[in-house]
């Protein structure tokens, strides 16, 4: 699925230099517009801010007063974080956090490796059935995960993989492949054929072309997909619950947090700190790699 907007024209999140006149004009003619923008911005920020403030308030305070009382009676503590991370006195989110990392890294790298060579074959090698195969893989993007889960679980159990990280690694890799191939293929097609011809004339084979010519040029596309997949896997709940649910040793932090929310729905000191522990990694990745993420979005892809 491509958007029709040319991807690279505008690095969206970079500030454009507005002319002073334009700004002044806008400010004068449309105070309502500014007000509406501010209202939306506040509505979108306040819920997160409230939970963040809460996560640093003492447990007793969270339970008895709203987080906004913090401004009249500021009290800070790290106890909530200590408690939610520690396995002995609290929810033990620390080990689930590590699980999330262990799950996410291979789930990004495996499909990247496989999709890159597959996309190369589709983009630069002529073979019978190429178009039909590519179309079939593209079409697989529409298969909802739900349709695959029960049979996959049976397969994993039969193969003796149940309750290992392999189930989650393989599942995420499989689900990520169609999008990865589609994105990388589109990007590879845009590389001028002349570059490859020149390399071929110099006697380079597929492997040499692949590593020396294409891979360095592919970096933005690889990054775009990598970030998508990273956020998707890190934030996933459905796949993890299906294959590693029920207090399993391989469950990621989203599962732990969802359970915490179900069983201790009023333990806001744990929930607020826990939520921020789980949010910190994707938000960091997101902020650092925003540019690639946006490029990926505009190149037309939202995993579904």
């Amino acid at each position: 699925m491509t958007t029709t907007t040319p991807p690279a024209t505008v690095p969206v999140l970079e500030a454009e230099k507005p002319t002073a006149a334009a700004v002044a004009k806008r400010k004068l003619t449309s105070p309502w517009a500014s007000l509406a923008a501010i209202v939306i911005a506040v509505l979108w920020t306040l819920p997160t801010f409230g939970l963040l403030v809460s996560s640093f308030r003492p447990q007793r305070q969270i339970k008895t007063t709203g987080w906004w009382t913090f401004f009249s009676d500021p009290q800070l503590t790290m106890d909530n974080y200590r408690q939610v991370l520690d396995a002995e006195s609290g929810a033990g989110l620390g080990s689930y956090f590590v699980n999330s990392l262990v799950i996410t890294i291979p789930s990004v790298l495996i499909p990247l490796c496989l999709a890159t060579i597959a996309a190369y074959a589709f983009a630069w090698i002529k073979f019978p059935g190429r178009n039909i195969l590519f179309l079939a893989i593209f079409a697989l993007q529409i298969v909802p995960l739900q349709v695959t889960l029960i049979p996959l679980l049976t397969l994993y159990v039969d193969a003796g993989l149940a309750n290992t990280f392999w189930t989650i690694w393989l599942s995420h890799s499989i689900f990520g492949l169609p999008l990865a191939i589609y994105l990388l293929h589109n990007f590879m097609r845009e590389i001028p054929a002349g570059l490859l011809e020149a390399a071929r004339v110099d006697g380079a084979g597929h492997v040499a072309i692949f590593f020396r010519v294409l891979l360095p040029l592919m970096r933005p596309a690889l990054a775009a997909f990598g970030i998508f997949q990273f956020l998707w896997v890190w934030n996933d709940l459905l796949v993890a619950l299906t294959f590693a649910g029920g207090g399993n040793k391989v469950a990621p932090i989203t599962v732990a947090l969802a359970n915490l929310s179900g069983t201790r729905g009023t333990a806001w000191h744990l929930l607020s700190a826990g939520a921020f522990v789980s949010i910190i990694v994707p938000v960091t990745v997101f902020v650092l790699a925003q540019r690639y993420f946006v490029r990926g979005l505009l190149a037309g892809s939202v995993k579904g």
Partner: protein
Amino acid sequence: MVAAILLFAAVVGAILFAATFFRGRRADRLTAYAYLAPTLVMLLVGLVYPGVRTIYESFFNAAGNAFIGLDNYKTIFTDGDQLTVLRNTVFWVVVTPFVATGVGLLYAILVDKARLESFAKALIFLPMAISFVGASIIWKFVYEYRPDQANVKQIGLLNQVLVWLGGTPQQWLVTSPLNTFLLIVVMIWIQAGFAMTVLSAAIKAIPEDIIEAARLDGVGPWGMFRFVTLPAIRPAVVVVLTTIGIGTLKVFDIVRTMTGGQFDTSVIANEFYSQSFRSDNQGLGSALAVLLFLLVIPIVVYNIRQIRRSEAL
């Protein structure tokens, strides 16, 4: 973890290496198939086979040992609980894409070329990085309810605002169908940033001379939006609407984390999970998954046709 990565790197390396030995007329063909082999195996085993298998299972009973034809589908469309699930899914799919796209579009226009544009955009964009579970917890806190007694203070923002306005606090997540819409708010909150980003890029891609020409013709701000901006970004709007629509159909995490599907808030994707893994009714679970699949197809087809058409122009 390291072993898994190394294993796959080794597989890919072996394939690349082996492919260098292909010689002759068919070398290219063989190389291509070798490069595609691991992907095709994984997709066939992990997507195609399970998909077909699920369709097959959907015609079987709860235990999966007796063929019952279309009974599972009949249940979905006649059983009271299941009808509530369908109703809620309709609410989700009708409301979320339009409101999220509307807010995204409005915001994109409002902050376009404004001071601090990038910062303003980041505020709306950030929820996209947060997991649905994290977002659900954030909003559950907003909806938190404390009984209405003199010595009890509200800790949920929404109820506090209500109290400030002179109302009595509500148990927001218990009242149906209001609770479904309060869950939808969470999805809108997450998706508006996506809409804003894509639409903002589309707006910025409108050629300057068109805008200039319209301005010289004396077109006002509203006319500019109606006759210049909107037609120019129409294809992007369609993509955003359909993409959010597809995501919304499959929403599961929010419902599960916030209400667990209780109080009449379940949707198809959540019901699939409950039936398959909690009620042990794999037949009905499979049928729900297939229904989800069937509902996604027309949206995707429409989306692809729109893209085709706009690219042909």
